[in-house]
Structures are given as structure tokens and as C-alpha cells.
């Protein structure tokens, strides 16, 4: 795997571990959030920091940016969901909840936001859908969600809108993957055995017809959105924290690793913190990239497939630009694969 790597160099970056990173639709910007309470935005081509979004008073667990790069949403351990103006870093609106916000995601039309709040201290875990008012400067939002429900059973850890309106995908602590109708709050379909342990990440294909998940069960899997059938499995030796799909190439990128405290033998130290590339159709490994001194917490691929970024427990965000040979390589011959 031939790559050129860029470290995020502007300012101090992050002082604590990364929790999620996201490219905008054009891929020129990379957003990162961290346990240091800060959200940063970087120029993805050179790693220079463009700005910060400051205001949260706890770990920022999750972020998402709309397709126009106008609004950013973030969820935090301070029990807040915030809406930000991307271009000037201004906080436009704050929604407050009884518990931490663990995951946020925009709908494909940018009109709605779905979020998961944690089950804690007598409060049930909840999934809420907000209808965003995109008119004016964005500060005129409704405090009340359009829909809200409490998934029964295992806690939801990740969520995303499907291509069907009102249908939301969830991943759970038990390893379950499910589809919820947000209007009725009912689970319309599930796969209880999608994974054997916590689902840590869920990223959709561009048309949202399939998605990749990562899990602490050391596997990443591709699922059919419509049927929730597992189509592909990528088995590794470490608990996984993130999995991403590479546009225009048939690859899945996975990252994870065990905390140093859990590592008992030196052999386990080998190759723990690499991003691994798998052929998504053939389920064969195609390459590994080193770059972090601790577990990889989050991976995102540039929407044009020209680079990818990883965020680590070590506090680093790295962007890796693929070189010419990556685009020319046809590791398994001339088979044409539909994206």
C-alpha cells in the first residue's frame, strides 16, 4: 500500500483521544472531535487547522456535517446536542438531555438529525429525530424532537438514516443490528446475531443500500440495508473501533486495537494499531498501514477515495494520501466490481 502521510499540524490539535472524524462532502475539510471537549476542522490536503468549535463541557463523542458544509452537529458527555455554523464556528442551537449524546447523523436531504442518548441513572436510552429549520441563520430551532422512542433491550450505540424516509438503522451493545420506524418507534427488522459483541461503528455506502459495521468481537461486516443480511465478514485479531468503505475501490478499512493495560504478551503488541485494508467482495486482506501509537478509534475515507484519515487513542489525526500505485493496483485481476 503506497501512501503519503500528513499529520495534522495546525495549532495544538487534540490533547486527548479522538472519538470521531468526518470529511465534508467535497472532502476538502476534515472534522474531528475528542475527549478534550474540542471539535476541530482541518484542511485535509495539508493538515492545517482551519478552526475550532468550542462550547462543550465534556467529551465530544460524535459529529456529523451536512452535505452543503453549512451545519455541523455534535453530541457530548455534557448531555448536549449542538448545532454549529461550519464557516464561522458559531454555536447556533443547543438541545439539552438528561444523559450523554453518543451518536448523531444527518439524513441524506440534510433536513433531519437523528441522535442516541445514553441509558443512565434511571433514564432509558432514547433515539430522537429532529427536524432542522434551515431557513435564516439556523438559530431558530425547535427544542422538541419530531420523533422520540426508547429501543427495548440492548442499548443502541450507533445510528444512521437509510434511503427510506423514517427508517433508521441502529447498532447495539449486544451485537444486534436493527431497523426502526421512527414514527411508530417500532423495531421493524433486526439481526440479533449481526455481531457477537458491541457494535462500535456503522458507515453507509453512498447510496445507503449497504453498510459496514465494526465490533469489539474483532470483526467488521457488510450488511444489506433492506434485509439486514450479513454479506461479508472481515476477521481480525483485535477488537475493532471503526470500519469505513473506500469509494471507487472495492476496499473496506478497519482499525482498532487493545488498550495497553489489556496487553499481556509482547506478541500481542505486534501489528495492533494498523489500519487494515480488505477486499470487500473477496474478503481477502490487501494491505496494512501503520501510524498510531495506540488503538485506532475512528476512520473516515475521503468521498472521492483519494485519501483516508484515522484518529487514535494517542490524540493524533493522520491523513494518508494514496499514491498513483494505489489507483492502478488491481490485486485480483481485471474483475469489474460494482460500487
Amino acid at each position, binding site marked *: *500500500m503506497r501512501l503519503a502521510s500528513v499529520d495534522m499540524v495546525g495549532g495544538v490539535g487534540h490533547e486527548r483521544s479522538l472519538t470521531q472524524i468526518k470529511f465534508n462532502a467535497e472532502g476538502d475539510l476534515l472534522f474531528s472531535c475528542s475527549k478534550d471537549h474540542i471539535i476541530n476542522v482541518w484542511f485535509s490536503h495539508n493538515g492545517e487547522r482551519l478552526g475550532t468549535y468550542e462550547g462543550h463541557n465534556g467529551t465530544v463523542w460524535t459529529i456529523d456535517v451536512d452535505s452543503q458544509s453549512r451545519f455541523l452537529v455534535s453530541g457530548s458527555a455534557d448531555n448536549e446536542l449542538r448545532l454549529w455554523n461550519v464557516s464561522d464556528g458559531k454555536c447556533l442551537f443547543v438541545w439539552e438531555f438528561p444523559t450523554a449524546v453518543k451518536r448523531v447523523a444527518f439524513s441524506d436531504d440534510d433536513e433531519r438529525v437523528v441522535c442516541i442518548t445514553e441509558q443512565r441513572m434511571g433514564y432509558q436510552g432514547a433515539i430522537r429525530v429532529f427536524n432542522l429549520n434551515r431557513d435564516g441563520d439556523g438559530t431558530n430551532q425547535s427544542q422538541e424532537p419530531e420523533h422520540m422512542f426508547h429501543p427495548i433491550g440492548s442499548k443502541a450505540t450507533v445510528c444512521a438514516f437509510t434511503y427510506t424516509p423514517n427508517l433508521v438503522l441502529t447498532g447495539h451493545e449486544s451485537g444486534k443490528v436493527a431497523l426502526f420506524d421512527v414514527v411508530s418507534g417500532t423495531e421493524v427488522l433486526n439481526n440479533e446475531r449481526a455481531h457477537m459483541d458491541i457494535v462500535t461503528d456503522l458507515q453507509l455506502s453512498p*447510496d445507503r443500500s449497504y453498510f459496514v459495521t465494526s465490533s469489539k468481537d474483532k470483526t467488521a461486516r457488510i450488511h444489506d440495508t*433492506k434485509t439486514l443480511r450479513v454479506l461479508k465478514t472481515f476477521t481480525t485479531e483485535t477488537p475493532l473501533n471503526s470500519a469505513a468503505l473506500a469509494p471507487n475501490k472495492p476496499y473496506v478499512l478497519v482499525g482498532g486495537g487493545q488498550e495497553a493495560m489489556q496487553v499481556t504478551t509482547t506478541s500481542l503488541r505486534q501489528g495492533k494499531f494498523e489500519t487494515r485494508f480488505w477486499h470487500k467482495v473477496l474478503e*481477502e486482506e*490487501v*494491505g496494512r498501514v501503520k501510524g498510531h501509537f495506540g488503538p485506532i478509534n475512528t476512520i473516515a475515507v475521503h468521498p472521492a477515495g483519494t485519501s483516508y484519515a484515522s484518529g487514535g487513542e494517542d490524540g493524533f489525526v493522520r491523513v494518508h494520501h494514496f499514491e498513483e500505485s494505489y489507483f492502478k493496483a488491481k490485486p485480483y485481476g481485471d474483475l*469489474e466490481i460494482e460500487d
Partner: protein
Amino acid sequence: EDAAEESNVSAELVAHRKRLVDEWNAWRARCKRDIAEEKRSRGQKLNGEHHEEEKEEIE
């Protein structure tokens, strides 16, 4: 080492890979039809249909 360099593979493996790719491509074609149907049922005009309708109006 990159698996990208690999070239000496058995005919069996080549056939296996071809089968996996064929299955994947057939499934992707079904997905694309499903999405098109979903959009149609929501009353969204697809680009292709839109052009046909415009032609009919001209006639």
C-alpha cells in the same frame, strides 16, 4: 508486503473470485432497482423518466 503484487494463483481461486464478484454485481443491480422503485413510490421523478415525459409533451 502488498497482496497487490500477487499473480500466481490457481485456476480454482480465480473461478472462486469470479463467482463472488458475479454474485456481488448481481446483488448491486438488484439494490439499484430497489432504490429506483423506492424513489418512484415517493413520487420523486427520476432523471430518465423526466426526459421521457418532456418528449411526450412536445409530441
